[in-house]
């Protein structure tokens, strides 16, 4: 308003074009440092950088840098044949202020520049207390022997699905015991680690292929996400969870029958309460085929499922899916961990879900409004402890399995989750980091220079499916062995004896409320 007035009062005949200055570009997050003595001007950095942060000055015949465009993915640094490039944090500092940290200042600039909603990728970046880091595990000393997983059996096998409270066993005509109770279907996992929903579209086909193969080799499951199932992946059906989210992309009966389970995605830890957008830029020919939408059009997932406005509607969808698949598939229901998670989880179990998935505050995403990513939802550690306890108090813990996701970073996190009461966990981000992701948090651009969160045919080539498979497989293989070692040190030789065994946990530096919710004693007690 003020500027308009000024303009009109100045009686200039020629309207001066106001030069728009983007303040957010003035203070780059990163600085590209180039060692000119080492640089051989091969221009690989230019080709590798999808954000065009590197340039070439024809006149001066030198490489140039646009620091503002650098996202800190380190691709150029990694690919530079002479080691001439280092990406550093911009040392240029604002005056120190504990409330007005550069993060907030820059965000204000960005929004003032564009009027838009702040967008981020990955999970919550705010340093809320990470409860995994305040929990420690037990080990045997004298009173019982630690067990060495290298030579003694150490069992990680887990069955997902509803279990009856009791079994009925009878003798057959030949005097052998047989099971009279009808059980299952159950899903057998050889490691309690599954791959979380990441859609084809959000991540590359090659990563999807790698995940599928790794799941098969490891005896676990991967999740298609809501982007449908690429034709090349149907062969991994027995290791596949197909997702049914609000957008219902690529969802047809063959798809529903393709896996061993169907996950109804109600919410996602990174963005509880809202839907998702796959920008049209990421909708390529292949993706359009799989998602069954036109090339280049945005793939929009609504916030709710428009056939679920209440818990009885959820029951409706669960049974619609079970009917359509002849009760041969397990139905997972995934929610974001929110304040009232225990009551919601109880309702989901009673609605007939076979597996409840809690996705916590730190759950990742390819794109979420920053305010949601950082401030909506609760830490999954607390949600898990509360939900497990609630289901036990209601006597329905056996009716469904409990899976958590969001912020699992290492095998010890997995062990702690299981001790708190989880049947299994999902990992997403660690699998991507295994493939080379550097957490630059720009997945939504479709320009992932590492070939992970993109389906640009040129970028896709940067990560082949074999490499993706091998690296993801190695990661989980290593974690599985670490889990065996940790179990053995606790004197357990089977994972089911850790499940819900909070005696194996102690807390360091938590207050009474936190201890009560986690159901864990403080270290020293």
């Amino acid at each position, binding site marked *: 308003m003020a500027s308009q007035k000024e303009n009109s009062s100045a009686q200039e005949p020629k309207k001066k074009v106001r030069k728009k200055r983007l303040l957010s570009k003035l203070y780059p997050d990163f600085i590209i440092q180039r060692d000119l003595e080492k640089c051989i001007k091969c221009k690989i950095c230019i080709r590798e950088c999808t954000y065009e942060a590197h340039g070439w000055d024809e006149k001066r015949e030198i490489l140039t840098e646009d620091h503002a465009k650098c996202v800190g993915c380190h691709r150029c640094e990694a690919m530079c044949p002479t080691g001439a490039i280092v990406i550093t944090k911009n040392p240029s500092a604002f005056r120190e202020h504990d409330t007005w940290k550069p993060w907030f200042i820059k965000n204000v600039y960005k929004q003032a520049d564009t009027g838009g909603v702040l967008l981020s990728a990955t999970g919550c970046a705010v340093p809320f207390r990470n409860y995994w880091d305040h929990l420690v595990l037990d080990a045997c000393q004298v009173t019982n022997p630690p067990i*060495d997983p*290298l*030579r*003694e*059996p150490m069992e990680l096998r887990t069955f997902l699905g509803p279990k009856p409270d009791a079994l009925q066993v009878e003798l057959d005509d030949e005097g052998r015991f047989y099971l009279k109770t009808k059980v299952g279907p159950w899903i057998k996992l050889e490691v309690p680690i599954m791959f979380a929903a990441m859609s084809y579209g959000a991540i590359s086909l090659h990563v999807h292929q790698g995940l599928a193969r790794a799941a098969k080799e490891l005896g676990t499951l991967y999740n298609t996400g809501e982007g449908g199932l690429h034709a090349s992946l149907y062969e991994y059906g027995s290791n596949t969870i197909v997702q049914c989210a609000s957008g219902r992309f690529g969802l047809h009966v063959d798809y529903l029958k393709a896996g061993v389970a169907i996950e109804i995605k109600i919410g996602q830890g990174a963005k509880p309460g809202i839907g998702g957008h796959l920008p049209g830029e990421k909708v390529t020919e292949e993706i359009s085929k799989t998602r069954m939408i036109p090339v280049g059009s945005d793939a929009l997932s609504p916030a709710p499922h428009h056939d679920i406005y209440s818990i009885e509607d959820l029951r409706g969808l669960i049974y619609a899916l079970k009917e359509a698949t002849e009760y041969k598939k397990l139905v997972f229901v995934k929610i974001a961990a929110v304040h009232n998670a225990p009551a919601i989880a109880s309702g989901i179990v009673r609605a007939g879900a076979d597996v409840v998935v809690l996705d916590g505050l730190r759950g990742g995403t390819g794109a979420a409004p920053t305010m949601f990513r950082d401030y909506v939802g609760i830490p999954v550690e607390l949600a898990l402890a509360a939900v497990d306890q609630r289901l036990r108090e209601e006597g329905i813990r056996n009716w469904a399995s409990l899976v958590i996701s969001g912020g699992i970073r290492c095998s010890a996190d997995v062990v702690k989750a299981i001790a708190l009461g989880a049947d299994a966990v999902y990992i997403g981000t660690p699998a991507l980091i295994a493939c080379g992701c550097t957490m630059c948090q720009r997945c939504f651009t479709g320009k992932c220079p590492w070939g992970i969160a993109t389906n640009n045919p040129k970028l896709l080539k940067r990560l082949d499916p074999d490499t993706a498979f091998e690296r993801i497989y190695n990661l989980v293989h*290593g974690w599985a*062995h670490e889990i065996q070692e940790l179990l053995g040190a606790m004197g357990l030789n089977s994972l089911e004896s850790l499940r819900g065994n909070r005696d194996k946990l102690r807390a360091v530096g938590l207050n009474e409320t936190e201890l009560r919710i986690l159901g864990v004693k403080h270290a020293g007690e």
Partner: protein
Amino acid sequence: MAFEIDAKDIHYRQVNELIREAIDQGAREIVLKNVNGQRYLAAGISSEVKIDVYGTPGLDLGAFMRGPNIVVHGNTQDGAGNTMDEGKIVVHGMAGDVVGYAMRGGKIHVASDVGYRVGIHMKAYMDKVPVIIIGGKAGDFLGEYMAGGMIVLLGINSRYEHRPLAGLFLGTGMHGGVIYLRGEIPSYHLGKGLSLEPINKEDEAILEGYLVDYCQDFGLDLQEIIDEKFFKIRPQTHRPYGKLYAY
């Protein structure tokens, strides 16, 4: 003349004191009568004395011993020959679990069955090669983590008609030494990466050498034992876990 000790209702500490006293007085043969459950008999004794035990000795018979020749006229409990160094234990019955744990030399001959984890982490060094020969059958984890020495499992004198020759996880983690079996067992009983091999002439000669002594102890016919087909189990590598770690 054998020096006789009546162990009835005597604490193991006193029994061992009497044994040591007798050795100090020059006894070469000692007879222990009415033993029942006394632990640590002859533990740590460095002397080539012969000790005849009547009854059921308790845990850790002959632990850490260097030299004695113990003959048990009955069964022994768990832990016989624990970390023994030299000498011999002959058991005219069955032996319990964890026989010859970390044994580094000498011999253990058992007439009948043994329990679980027998010969675990036996090791050999220079001219010290420990040997365990079992007349009956063995439980799970036989030769677990074996680093050296020899275990021979005959299966000729067992009270457990329906049990397999050896239990599960046979030789698991084995990285030295050799296990000889008189007869076959299903491959899923073997530790990871191990397999049964037929024995060769050299093995036959070695086996015969040790079995002659075993047959003498129990009055058995050597020919009858070696007429059956033997198999051997050897470690695939001396570093089974070389690839375990990420640095």
